């Protein structure tokens, strides 16, 4: 018993000294819960915004979200597992989401998807070894008239061909490099 209590207090200290969210995100989430007549309405966007910053829904994120909303962690997990954009493992810094649904399929969505697999050397749901890219096939993203379409994180790219794939990847590689330089 004694050892367990000690361990808990160590973990508690750790979480106090290492906040899960940046001050900016914490402030944003503080404001978020005040928007609604009922606090819990903030849950789904809160999980998404937390994931945007942390990269995925880690145990620490889930616990912190549960605390902020005032519900159990289990309840948070039950909701989080429903939504396809929420993930429990890190993705790449740039998550490439290729739509292969009907309108995109008809205009070469699968060819685009395969070209990404080749260029990145990863299988579906894979992450590149440098952690820069991850790749997944997604359902319709609401860009059917500009098919085939993809999203890289939240950015849309549309009217693609397999040939436009390397250029898109280069753009994001440069973006990452410039960020590093500026940092």
């Amino acid at each position, binding site marked *: 018993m004694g050892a367990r209590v000690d361990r808990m207090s160590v973990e508690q200290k750790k979480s106090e000294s290492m906040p899960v969210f940046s001050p900016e995100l914490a402030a944003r989430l503080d404001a978020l819960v005040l928007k609604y007549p009922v606090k819990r309405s903030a849950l*789904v966007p809160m999980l998404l915004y937390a994931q945007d910053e942390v990269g995925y829904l880690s145990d620490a994120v889930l616990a912190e979200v549960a605390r902020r909303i005032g519900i159990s962690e289990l309840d948070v997990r039950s*909701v989080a597992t429903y939504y396809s954009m929420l993930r429990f493992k890190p993705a790449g810094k740039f998550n490439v989401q290729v739509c292969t649904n009907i309108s995109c399929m008809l205009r070469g969505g699968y060819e685009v998807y395969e070209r990404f697999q080749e260029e990145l050397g990863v299988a579906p749901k894979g992450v590149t070894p440098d952690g820069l890219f991850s790749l997944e096939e997604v359902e319709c993203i609401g860009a*059917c008239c*500009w098919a085939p379409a993809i999203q890289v994180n*939240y950015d849309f790219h549309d009217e693609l061909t397999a040939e436009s794939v390397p250029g898109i990847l280069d753009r994001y590689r440069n973006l990452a490099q410039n960020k590093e330089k500026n940092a």
Partner: protein
Amino acid sequence: MPRLVSHPDEVKIVTRRFGQGAAQIDRYLELGGYEAVKKCLAQGPEWIVEEMKASGLRGRGGAGFSTGMKWSFVPKQSAKPKYIIVNGDESEPGTCKDHLIFLHDPHSVIEGTIIAGLAVGAKMGFIYLRGEYRYLLEKMERAVAEAYERGFLGKNIFGTEAEFQIVTQSGAGAYEVGEESALMESLEGKRGVPRIKPPFPAVVGLYGGPTVINNAETIATVPHVIAMGAAAYAAVGTPRNGGTRLFGISGHVERPGVYELPMGYNLKKMIYEVAGGVRGGRGLKAVVPGGSSTPVLLPEEIDIGMDFDQVGKAGSMLGSGGVVVIDDQTCIVEFAMRTISFYAHESCGWCIPCREGTDWLKKTLTRFHAGFGQPSDIDNIRYLAENMLGRTFCPLGDAAAMPTLGFVKKFRQEFEDHLHGKPCPYARAGVPQLTVV
């Protein structure tokens, strides 16, 4: 950036301000914005509802229910607060029209939401966008902030006694959350599992209060109906189908895009004239007329007017207005397989006919397309789909079963061509056939 298209046959009502910087409030005002809501404040709730009824505007989310009727079902007196919800979950494959509304004319959504609130006596509205539409949510949020700054939202809007608040909300990936009661669950911070009906949202909706939920295009249309007058709006369409629709034409056409055409516009003309015909001069094989859940039409069935009643008579549905055009070098079995894979992925799993039915259909069609079909499969697919119809908790089950039935009934020969271990006779070059799951 999504490309804007244009065609002389278009009647630009809802898209009137597209591409003109109307996301910025001053520009929106210059273009006549927020005049309709002022008119409504002067005229009062009964007048608004009567105008909506007279306009013949029917819901653009899919089912085509009369907007005025829907609003009239909300009880006048209510112990609990009433709410308006704008459904911007837009996830039906083939549909991308709300995308353009949020991008080019977010204030029309705000104005429409306020008018809906005035009509039913609600003081708060929620604008729910699918999680993938982050850049559009940011556009909406900026527009909402501008409207607050001007006193168009908040307490005493436009200097009157009226109050109206708007809250924007992000989803996080779920087609089923587009279903109205599932969306309310999601807005309450829960899994998107639909609610039993009745009671209907107009009586018991969000947080238990009477709620109007409308599609984003429906709401964005409202200020235009008020501004031009119900009679003028109704006159643009066909009987019982007022106004225009944002038709999204995708797939194998020369000029895919979102076109605003009068209700009842001929489908054949839409494909061959507006969208420039089938890509590369190929032949037409099939048309999905209103988003992936609507049964497929054959080339000889497309000489019809695109309104709810005429497409219904042709054995399909106008749905979300997403027209998907399929050329003669496409494999219908693969198309059916991809369609059902979507529904299997999106089934919320709450009821068995949908959860199991979509999964079995997906497995059977995948095996079938891979060349491991049995002659009995074709009838089994039909049997499975028929047994889902009308037996599921929410309409997603029907949305999965109906198109599947259409494909096997209308393209039976093509299914038979896949039998006996033969490779897919219509396989697209370079696309490997899927392995058996």
